[in-house]
């Protein structure tokens, strides 16, 4: 009989933690999306809508017609109606191209600072948020290293707002318990050493020496642990 493959049944192992960070990430993305949409809408489409609105086109047509009228009053001697129509159409087309070009240029110019701000916001926001996790992890890693080297005096303090408070608290309890046990063993070994010293006259020299060696070994091992 083969074991059934492991299936994760609960995706919300730490519900509060996961929901909190899901919300944070979503908020950042929504902010970015909102700013981008607003920038594009008000920057590009706003300008295009304004320039191509019925009112604006009507204003532009009137401007073109008026300028053509001025030129005709000043320069032309006769009826240039057909030429004028073509010229107006050409002017209008040129004007709309300029308006579109201006609108795109304006959007590009306005988007650059917005994108820069958003990137900086995401960068510093990411650092800030990840620091809440990375900080405790760094301290756990450093404390584990110290424990590996025998220093049982370490603690797992966390700062306000840090994540993994429960895990660090448990680790702290574990180290404290270990430290207490090592202390007790150290005390017991010292007591044992004095008893052996007292009993050394009653014991065969070989046995006495053998016990002293064992105590010395225990002492040597315990001496690596700082408590």
């Amino acid at each position, binding site marked *: 009989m083969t074991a059934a493959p492991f299936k994760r049944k609960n995706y919300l192992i730490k519900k509060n933690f996961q929901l909190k960070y899901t919300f944070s990430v979503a908020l950042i993305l929504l902010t970015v999306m909102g700013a981008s949409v607003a920038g594009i809408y008000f920057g590009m489409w706003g300008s295009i809508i304004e320039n191509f609105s019925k009112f*604006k086109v009507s*204003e*532009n047509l*009137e*401007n*073109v*017609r*008026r*300028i053509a*009228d*001025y*030129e005709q*009053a*000043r*320069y032309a*001697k006769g009826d240039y109606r057909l030429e004028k129509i073509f010229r107006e159409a050409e*002017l209008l087309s*040129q*004007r709309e191209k300029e308006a579109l070009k201006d609108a795109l240029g304006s959007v590009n110019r306005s988007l650059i600072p917005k994108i820069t701000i958003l990137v900086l916001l995401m960068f510093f926001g990411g650092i800030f948020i990840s620091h809440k996790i990375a900080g405790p992890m760094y301290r756990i890693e450093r404390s584990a290293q110290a424990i590996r080297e025998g220093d049982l005096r370490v603690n797992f303090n966390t700062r306000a707002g840090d994540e993994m408070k429960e895990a660090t608290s448990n680790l702290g309890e574990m180290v404290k318990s270990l430290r207490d046990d090592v202390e007790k063993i150290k005390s017991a070994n010292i007591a044992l050493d004095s008893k052996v010293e007292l009993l050394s006259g009653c014991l065969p020299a070989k046995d006495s020496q053998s016990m002293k060696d064992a105590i010395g070994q225990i002492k040597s091992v315990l001496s690596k642990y700082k408590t």
Partner: protein
Amino acid sequence: MNASPSDYEFLNKLEYDSLRYFVGEVNPSNGLIKDSSRPGAPCSVAAVGFGLTALCIGESRGWLDKKQVYDRVLTTLLTFRDKVKNEHGFFYHFLDMRTGQRAWNSELSSIDTALFMAGALFAGEYFKGTKIEEVANELYERVDWAWMLNGGKLLCMGWKPEEDFLPYYWDSYNEAMILYALAVGSPTHPIDKKCWFEWLRPVGIYKGYAVVFCYTGSLFTYQYSHAWIDFRKLKDGGISYFINSINASKANREFCIENSNRYKTYGENCWGLTACLGPEGYKGYGAKPGEAFHDGTIAPSGMAGSLPFCWSESLSGLKFIYERHKNFIYGKYGFKDAFNLDKNWWSEEYLGIDVGITVLMIENYRTGLVWDKFMKINAIKSWIYKCMEVEVEEEPE
């Protein structure tokens, strides 16, 4: 001034209301003035020339605060010096109100640049010894008038980057006398004084009035140069352009009276055929002598611009239109541009150059302020010295 107190009151109101255009239809951040009160209208550099002068008039009358006028005029001149694109110092006819860049594909215009320069130099003289005078002179001295000759002896009407020089020249009598005067009088890029004598001076007679005429017969051509230059004591080969404008104004009035049976608008108190808006758009309306294209449309600015030439007829006409049609034709900036009774058409717009000529000519009629200041400008003195004869008043016996 020979007008009665009620006339004075009417002119005061018309001048004040018209002047408000140059306060209301402006972009305060750069001083650019709209060609027309129509929404979306571009800036007209000629309207700016009239506006600079009008603002100073407003200050002289105590209607506008001196510091505000100074700041606005300086802002405008700095915009033209530093932001508005120029070619050899000339400006495009129409500009974007926001950016100051060329609007549509309008031409680099010699006459509109000259009208702007007239306003700038007047403001420089009005605020003599200030930064305004310095910048105005800088703008004027930057203009390479000789370039606009295009290698010939007559000033070209304009230039486009896409087409080079336009095939039209200021080759006959018209509003361009001020252009030639400023070009001849330039201390930096003058044209030869011979150019002044190159353009034609055709003479036509209508109803007994002999006129050196413009081919369109538009009244504004007899007014614009006179808005700044005081021609009263100047002669050009025996021609007095001041008397010429008197005759042209009276001939224009006679032409309207003559045609009053064809068009309801015309009459002895409703005349002044000049370029303006009409039922079919902007047209170069005019009277004889000249082509005399007309359709019954009258612009009150035609009569207002002739106030110094025939004050009685002009004033009567302006008051007549005001009293009879003020509900349709008079608004926040004085008279709207034009109307046509036959077609029951009333302009809803004000044109910057038309309210501009109204303000300047009322002021010249009342005090001669613009003439007095402008005639003190060195460039104008230089042009007079080179091209004109000055009448000397005889001592009374």
